[in-house]
């Protein structure tokens, strides 16, 4: 098993990219972030398709890039399996030829047969990519990358070309394959469902910097920056104007806190499902809001509530729970355990230096 260490910097015009992390030896590490944040750049750097300006990149004892020693191994020398966003199959070759492209002639036949069988592509061995469905193309791209017997598997938005129904099916297939691999798997995606289904570890890249990195549960429950929290699906943000020892306040009002928070805090956040409705103003751990809209989506009722400063909060309640009608006023109660303090990325908080060995990866500002 190999471990991938990445500590690289790159400057392209105004875009600064700086990532320092160790990708675990086994399991899927998902990289999440807004468009243009540099997720795919990291994959390209690992694959050797992009040369960083500075840093070190190694897979176990093999150094792939070292700016000090002026080492830059090309993509041909790295043994990386890369599944491109829209598969990048060789259109003039059959499925078999695609899968066997990177395999030595002496073992090509056996490996191609193995991967055709493994990914249920036997019936399409002599077809061309143009004759395949989206799901079949994805399987060919995966088989081609794995037949090469890579030390690292990189997946760049592997489901972006699939419709929602196919996406569910493809996720299941991919999970079955990658679970049996003993190599680091790095997946770039912006889809939270992909991450919840496939990932063991998550990194959040914002504006070219790695801001969160850790286990799936830890990163999703404890974001540290607003930009990372947004990428992770957090929706409610209260701008903080002043912080005292037991409370925070903004244009939206004041909330009591049972702990001290960092003076760098710019935002308070809470997940929609953790906010409760109360008709009484229970002192300073609730805020008065007016209901703007109430929508039932399956078993969840989604409430859009307007704060005194005009901003909206999203609240999720069980569909059958009685709630005030649109236009009525109510109070939202924020349980202390679920409130998180965030900073703005790139301002007070520095991006983290992450290592899988150190599980306490995120420099939390709240308890």
């Amino acid at each position, binding site marked *: 098993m190999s471990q991938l260490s990445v500590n690289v910097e790159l400057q392209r015009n105004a875009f600064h990219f700086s990532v320092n992390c160790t990708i675990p030896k086994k399991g899927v590490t998902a990289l999440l972030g807004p468009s243009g944040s540099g997720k795919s750049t990291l994959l390209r750097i690992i*694959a050797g398709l992009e040369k960083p300006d500075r840093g070190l990149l190694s897979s176990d004892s093999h150094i792939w890039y070292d700016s000090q020693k002026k080492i830059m191994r090309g993509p041909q020398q790295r043994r*990386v399996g890369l599944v491109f966003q829209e598969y990048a*199959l*060789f*259109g003039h070759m059959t499925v078999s030829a695609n899968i066997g*492209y990177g395999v030595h002639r002496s073992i090509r036949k056996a490996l191609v047969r193995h991967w055709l069988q493994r990914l249920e592509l036997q019936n399409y061995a002599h077809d061309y990519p*143009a004759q395949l469905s989206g799901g079949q193309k994805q399987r060919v791209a995966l088989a081609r990358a794995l037949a090469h017997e890579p030390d690292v598997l990189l997946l760049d938005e592997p489901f972006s070309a699939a419709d929602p129904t196919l996406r569910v099916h493809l996720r299941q297939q991919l999970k079955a394959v990658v679970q049996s691999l003993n190599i680091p798997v790095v997946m770039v995606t912006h889809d939270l469902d992909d991450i919840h289904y496939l990932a063991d570890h998550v990194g959040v890249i914002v504006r070219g910097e790695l801001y969160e990195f850790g286990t799936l549960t830890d990163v999703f429950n404890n974001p540290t920056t607003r930009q990372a929290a947004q990428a992770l699906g957090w929706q409610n943000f209260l701008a903080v104007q002043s912080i005292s020892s037991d409370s925070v306040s903004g244009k939206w009002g004041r909330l009591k806190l049972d702990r001290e928070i960092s003076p760098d805090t710019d935002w308070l956040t809470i997940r929609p499902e953790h906010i409760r409705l109360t008709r009484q103003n229970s002192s300073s751990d609730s805020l008065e809001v007016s209901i703007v809209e109430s929508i039932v989506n399956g078993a969840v009722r989604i409430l859009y509530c307007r704060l005194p400063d005009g901003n909206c909060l999203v609240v999720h309640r069980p569909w059958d729970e009685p709630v005030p009608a649109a236009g009525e006023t109510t109070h939202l109660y924020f349980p202390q355990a679920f409130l998180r303090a965030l900073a703005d990325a790139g301002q007070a908080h520095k991006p983290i230096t992450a290592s899988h060995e150190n599980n306490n990866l995120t420099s939390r500002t709240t308890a």
Partner: protein
Amino acid sequence: MATGAWENSTNGFIMTMNDWQAMSLTLQLATLTVIILLALGTPLAWWLSQTRHRFKVVVETVTALPLVLPPTVLGFYLLVLLGAHGPLGGFWQSFTGAPLAFSFGGLVIASCLYSLPFVVQPLQNAFERLDRRAIEAAWTLGASPWWTFLTIILPQGRRGFLTAIVLGFAHTLGEFGVVLMVGGNIPGKTQVVSIAIYEHVESFNYTAANNLSLILLAFSFVVLFIVYAINRRWYSGVAA
């Protein structure tokens, strides 16, 4: 007068030794020109398709010049360059003892320059349309740049190569002004078909001019027909 010459010379489809030599020389010239231009034009077209260098536009302009320059202008400068007192011609003569102007070697150089854009531009267009990710995928699968060229770039850019070959070949077949300026009209040495046709017309031998013209016409039609047919097949085929 012209009609008389036509009537006097309608003795059937007869070609003189000079005509055959002109035909043979033209085919040799066109073939050699295309081979040289593919060897030189492919890396140039690749560079033009990939680079963001500030001199790219200069190189593109120079490459396209033969498209707009009158052949006599290009021919004149080539004559100066390749002549016994020209920089290239002088060097060549001191090295080999033979002149470059009014020789087959001079014709090849002139043809290569004159047909350069007809080979480079289709190749450049083809390279710009290539699926960059497929090339990168080949690299990550261990393919060397040369192997990637043979197995990915060449097959994916085959229509561009076919167009470049046909345009380069056909354009060389039809050269007149540049060839006349640089090579003159020496039968068996520098006289190509287009000049032989001109000479036949000048001497009112319309049958001979017609014979050569018909061969060129038929040849051009057949070549273009085959190219379009192949292109159509590649375009609609599953492997396209």
